[in-house]
């Protein structure tokens, strides 16, 4: 039967978008809440929260300025004055870690977010349009993916110059085709469902259908993808820092700190261990949270079966 209700998309565009944001936000929040009921989420979420706090307030909480030289305390081991020791210029490692948290977290989350937004837009519209358009768009995405991500990132950063803005852009470009693939297949499975068909028969615009009918129903896929992408982004950004193409000195960069620590690894291992531990726990936290979210998505279904 053909429905004759008037299309709702003629209403204010702003309210429509706000509605989507609120609905998706509530759904993401619910997912994170559910993740707290899994082992991974219980450890991962506090770890991620700790680093988020550092990213927000790290430079304020740091005991010393990150670039201050304590020339009488070069390479001194961890002590009560310098909790994690000092590096070759006598800079306090704890302060450098706390200050560096902001740039690595900001860069990788903005980069991942850019990749997710671009990829979701491309993937959803490609799947929704279908046919030749879909074919062409996905070929272009395949072309982008035919570069190994680190090589592409290195080439782009060498050309554009290494700074925070370009690293974010690079991560976004590298992730876009990969997210687009995932979102395309998620959209294809939602597209065939009845409520999308009825919205189409109602005469809603493609914009309305993609954002109000399809997007909210791909949120579970999107949350998992976002958490996985975030951990890849941290790995990529810190690797670039290690190779010398990250945030430029003297601002502290975890990857670069590890790279520079190699010269006195035997004499002062704490210079390497502190940033290595920071990168490791941050990525482990994000991965545990991702694992928790993935497991949590199966929880409601399991409870239904049990009751």
């Amino acid at each position, binding site marked *: 039967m053909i429905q004759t209700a008037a299309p709702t998309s003629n209403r204010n565009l702003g309210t429509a978008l706000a509605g989507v944001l609120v609905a998706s936000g509530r759904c993401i929040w619910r997912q994170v809440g559910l993740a707290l009921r899994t082992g991974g989420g219980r450890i991962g979420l506090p770890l991620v929260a700790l680093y988020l706090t550092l990213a927000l307030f790290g430079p304020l909480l740091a005991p010393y300025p990150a670039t201050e030289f304590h020339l009488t305390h070069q390479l001194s081991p961890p002590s009560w004055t310098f909790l994690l020791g000092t590096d070759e210029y006598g800079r306090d490692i704890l302060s450098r870690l706390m200050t560096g948290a902001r740039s690595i977290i900001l860069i990788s989350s903005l980069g991942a977010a850019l990749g997710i937004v671009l990829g979701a837009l491309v993937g959803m519209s490609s799947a929704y349009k279908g046919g030749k358009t879909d074919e062409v768009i996905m070929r272009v995405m395949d072309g982008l993916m035919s*570069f190994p991500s680190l090589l592409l990132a290195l080439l782009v950063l060498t050309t554009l110059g290494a700074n925070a803005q370009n690293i974010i852009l690079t991560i976004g470009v590298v992730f876009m085709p990969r997210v687009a693939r995932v979102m395309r297949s998620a959209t294809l499975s939602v597209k065939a469902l009845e409520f999308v068909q009825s919205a189409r028969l109602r005469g809603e615009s493609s914009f309305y259908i993609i954002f109000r009918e399809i997007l909210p129903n791909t949120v579970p896929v999107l949350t998992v993808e976002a958490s996985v992408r975030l951990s890849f982004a941290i790995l990529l950004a810190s690797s670039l820092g*290690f*190779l010398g193409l990250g945030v430029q000195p003297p601002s502290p960069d975890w990857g670069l700190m*590890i790279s520079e620590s190699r010269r006195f*690894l*035997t004499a002062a291992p704490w210079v390497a261990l502190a940033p290595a531990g920071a990168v*490791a726990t941050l990525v482990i936290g994000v991965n545990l949270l991702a694992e928790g979210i993935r497991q949590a998505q199966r929880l409601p279904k399991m409870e239904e079966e049990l009751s």
Partner: protein
Amino acid sequence: MLRFLTRRISLILVTLLVVSLAIFLVTEVLPGDVANMVLGQGATPENLAAVRKQLGLDTPAYARYLSWIGHALQGDLGTSYVQRLPIAHIIAGRLGNSIILAAFAFLVSVPSAVAIGVWAGIKRDSWGDQVVSVASLVAISLPEFVTGVLFILLFASVLHWLPSSSILLPGTTPLDRPQILVLPALTLTGVLLAYIMRMTRANVIEVMQSNYVRTAILKGLPMRRVIWRHVLPNALLPTISIIAMNLGWMLGGLIIVENVFAFPGIGRLLLTSITSRDVPLLQAVALLIAATYAVSNLLADLSYSLLNPRIRLS
């Protein structure tokens, strides 16, 4: 099959064409005048013009691209600006070293990853499976440079078992000093092993829940037979393409690992060419890495379709 093969190979040629064009464009706009760099400070304008002419920098970009790609197809990759040596010559030795390292890591990680993955999948949620799951999550969370530095600290600084860097004398290969291969290969193995293992485990679990495995168990077949005849062939199928996919993915790891250990391979050469702005060398190495990636993707597809008759026809 033949049609599938020609289609895939022609697709690869198109990909490589686009990739080479992209590499050329990206490296052509690199800041810094090459002629200036070759001659150093205090070069006269006449000398600069002469060098530009000699390097062919006075011709338009499309002509330079065509001549570059034309020569590259004949195996002539040009001359390095910095080392003043034929690039094919520089790359040949480095490529061999990288292949040895990658092969070493692959031979260690793939069999063990598949074995552990299958075991963990069959013993799902057991005590051992949970240990393996946590360990593999930690392994994929550690970037290669962190694992590498930790290995150096443990095996070179503390235990003094292995050398901390993989520097080689000119004219020797890693096989002459196999001990330098151990730490880089171990570092590469970590992530690879964890990744392939997790995929294998997931595949085994999926197959274990299928109806045909349930039927096999319920009709009273011995568990050993169910696993070897019903679970493994179906679970290992996607694993094979994952392994081939990782071949390309390992290239990224290779770039980092080689730089952690100063291992004289392609990845180290890539970074040296970037820092010294050696454009022809950078172009050649980038093209080589991209081509390897494309070929390993092709291998992934081929192996999958060879083993799975259901896709071959389409």
